[in-house]
């Protein structure tokens, strides 16, 4: 009941007319910016960060809640109407969503996405309310060794599990960690990587780095490869659904939510794996499997719900452990620190009213999203027609403005340009962006925990595994690292087991990022093995195998596994 009364208190704060207005502004800004092609939710939050600095923290976070869900929803609108998703979590939505739109059912696709997002967001946020205090209770008992281990796991997970190439993920992580080192060492006061430049002593502002990598890098990259032929944009009226559509949508919404939330909450989470799993499941369970690939509504409803539930799930480790698992959460964490608020197990004790207001606004923002977006969908569709020169010039303009307004110094703009160039190169050569951002944000904190741990053990290395949780996490890390090897051995012993089936599944799925999803699902099964203590990998794959349909490509793909560019 304690939680309930806290939540009610949160609603009381969030429902004042002024804060409600901030939530509404957040939802509209978030959707409008998120709809624009080339702008994902992380960039949306990064670009809008400076706007919130002048607000008091509570109002700022209420606005954030709106921006967060708005940005997510905006991305799915783009992928349904344009079919070239800008972010990996919308890839699956685009498969069926765009087919539906082309078949003249854009209104229904948008409606099932919007209502599915609402359902998943509401259930996800409710789960967040229930789960987070439990995680906090557990997290309070954790010491530095466990935190160090968990953060290492998170870094490893985004580097090695998500993304197509481990090596390139590793390189990106190294760059992020190096950028995170810049500034005065907090323990000894020595300057690291400042090159005698006093402006670097405080370190690089995370907002500036995030805006550089996301916004400037993206604008430069798109400029280099700007599509000169206009894209086919499907006109759309007000979204609506018929009785049949409702009937076919509600179960996928719930199943998608069930996939999304847990994955979002894991340190190795992300929305790619659950959206992909949801798609495969819906394809198998559907009464109209023949419609898949031609615009099946289940294929939009499930993955969209999974996407949004994962977004809610992501907030659990973010709030309870201070551990961001995707780029958007990482940028939000940066916002927290900017306000002098330290996310982690003591957040609820120290900043209770603020956190509960944030959570209440997630519910409110989610509802506003539905109310605003159903009637405004045609307007958002018009935004897609914005002439590209204005769009990308605008991104550069507002990126500059945002980065400059943080400290009002031209030096930050040089940093913006240099790191924007880095962001360009990373896109050109396939280095994933997420490990860099997480390395930048988690790096200094990992170092802090490492030093605290060895301080407590008086320099004895065994202090690193002095807590049971730390040991468990290290075992998981070892399994993730050894998984490619393990899979290879397993395949040799029993050629028809987990890995090949999972690969066959991925190969038959029409997703553009087959190899990514496959790698992800294999490793996901790997972690579930460790969690259950049973060989879940085999059974999970067996359960899914009927969905694969075609297995012809199975023999070609496994060869890639564990090698560099798969």
């Amino acid at each position, binding site marked *: 009941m304690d939680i309930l009364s806290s939540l009610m208190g949160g609603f009381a704060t969030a429902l004042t007319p002024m804060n409600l207005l901030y939530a509404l502004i957040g939802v509209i800004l978030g959707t409008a910016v998120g709809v624009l092609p080339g702008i994902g939710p992380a960039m949306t939050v990064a670009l809008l960060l400076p706007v919130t600095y002048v607000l008091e923290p509570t109002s700022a976070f209420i606005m954030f809640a709106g921006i967060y869900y708005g940005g997510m929803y905006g991305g799915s609108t783009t992928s349904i109407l344009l079919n070239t998703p800008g972010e990996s979590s919308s890839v699956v939505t685009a498969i069926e969503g765009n087919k539906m739109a082309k078949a003249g059912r854009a209104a229904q696709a948008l409606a099932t996405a919007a209502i599915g997002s609402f359902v998943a967001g509401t259930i996800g946020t409710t789960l967040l309310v229930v789960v987070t205090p439990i995680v906090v209770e557990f997290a309070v008992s954790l010491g530095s060794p466990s935190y160090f281990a968990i953060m290492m796991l998170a870094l490893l997970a985004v580097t090695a599990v998500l993304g197509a190439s481990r090596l390139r993920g590793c390189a990106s992580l190294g760059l992020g960690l190096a950028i995170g080192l810049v500034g005065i060492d907090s323990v000894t006061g020595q300057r690291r990587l400042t090159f005698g430049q006093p402006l670097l002593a405080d370190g690089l502002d995370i907002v500036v780095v995030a805006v550089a990598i996301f916004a400037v890098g993206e604008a430069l990259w*798109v400029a280099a490869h700007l599509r000169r032929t206009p894209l086919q944009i499907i006109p759309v009226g007000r979204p609506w659904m018929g009785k049949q559509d409702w009937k076919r949508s509600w179960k996928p919404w719930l199943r998608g939510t069930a996939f999304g939330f847990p994955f979002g909450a894991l340190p190795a989470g992300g929305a790619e794996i659950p959206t992909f799993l949801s798609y495969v499941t819906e394809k198998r369970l559907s009464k109209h499997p023949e419609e898949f690939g031609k615009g099946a509504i289940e294929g939009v409803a499930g993955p969209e719900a999974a996407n949004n539930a994962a977004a809610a799930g992501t907030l659990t480790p973010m709030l309870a452990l201070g551990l961001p698992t995707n780029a958007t959460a990482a940028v939000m964490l940066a916002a927290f620190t900017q306000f002098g608020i330290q996310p982690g197990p003591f957040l609820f004790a120290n900043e209770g009213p603020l956190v509960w207001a944030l959570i209440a606004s997630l519910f409110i923002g989610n509802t506003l999203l539905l109310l605003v977006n159903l009637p405004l969908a045609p307007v958002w569709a018009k935004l897609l027609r914005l002439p590209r020169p204005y769009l990308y010039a605008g991104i550069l303009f507002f990126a500059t403005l945002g980065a400059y307004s943080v400290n009002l110094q031209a030096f930050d703009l040089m940093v913006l340009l240099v790191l924007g160039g880095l962001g360009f190169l990373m896109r050109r050569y396939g280095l994933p962006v997420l490990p860099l951002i997480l390395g930048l944000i988690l790096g200094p904190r990992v170092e802090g925990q490492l030093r605290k741990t060895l301080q407590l053990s008086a320099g004895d290395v065994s202090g690193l595994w002095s807590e049971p949780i730390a040991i468990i996490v290290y075992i998981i890390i070892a399994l993730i690292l050894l998984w490619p090897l393990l899979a290879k051995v397993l395949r040799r012993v029993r050629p028809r087991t987990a890995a090949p089936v999972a690969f066959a599944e991925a190969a038959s799925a029409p997703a553009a990022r087959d190899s990514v999803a496959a790698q992800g699902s294999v490793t996901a099964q790997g972690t579930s093995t460790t969690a259950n203590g049973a060989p879940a990998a085999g059974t999970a794959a067996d359960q899914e195998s009927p969905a694969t349909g075609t297995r012809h490509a199975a023999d070609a793909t496994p060869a890639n596994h564990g090698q560099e560019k798969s």
Partner: protein
Amino acid sequence: MTSLSSRLKGRSELGIAALLGAAGALVLIDAARLVTPYSQSDPVGPKTVPIIVGALLLVSAVMLAVNVLRGGHGEAEAGEDVDLTHPSDWKTVLPLAGAFIANILLIDWAGWVISGTVLFWGSVWALGSRHYVRDGLISLALSLLTFYGFYLGLGIALPAGLLEGIL
């Protein structure tokens, strides 16, 4: 020589490996400069993590170089407005960067309204719009709007520069 150049052709990704290597070396050199008085309260010291990070970068650099030479390559990022069928269009990127640099040079001296106008107008031009007058008006309007919006709405005073007293 010819075999070397043919092996290097289309391997511009080696530049990334070089960049990583340089970054790693930089981190290590900087770390070597730090002094670590051994103390009971900080057995790890300020050097350890930079050394690990530098080593990680160097190892990545070497492995990436090997990977590229063996035929691996990173996949360029796709997107809504990205057309990967044509090569990088430097005629767009360089003027765009130029507009950006112009803004950096102008912002403190000439003020945001002027530098922002230059930035937006230059970017739009670089990206292929040729409606000079309309673009100019839009640029000016955007700069003025953000200047007053930030000042009145957010309380952030962007530099007025040359126009100080007029704005």
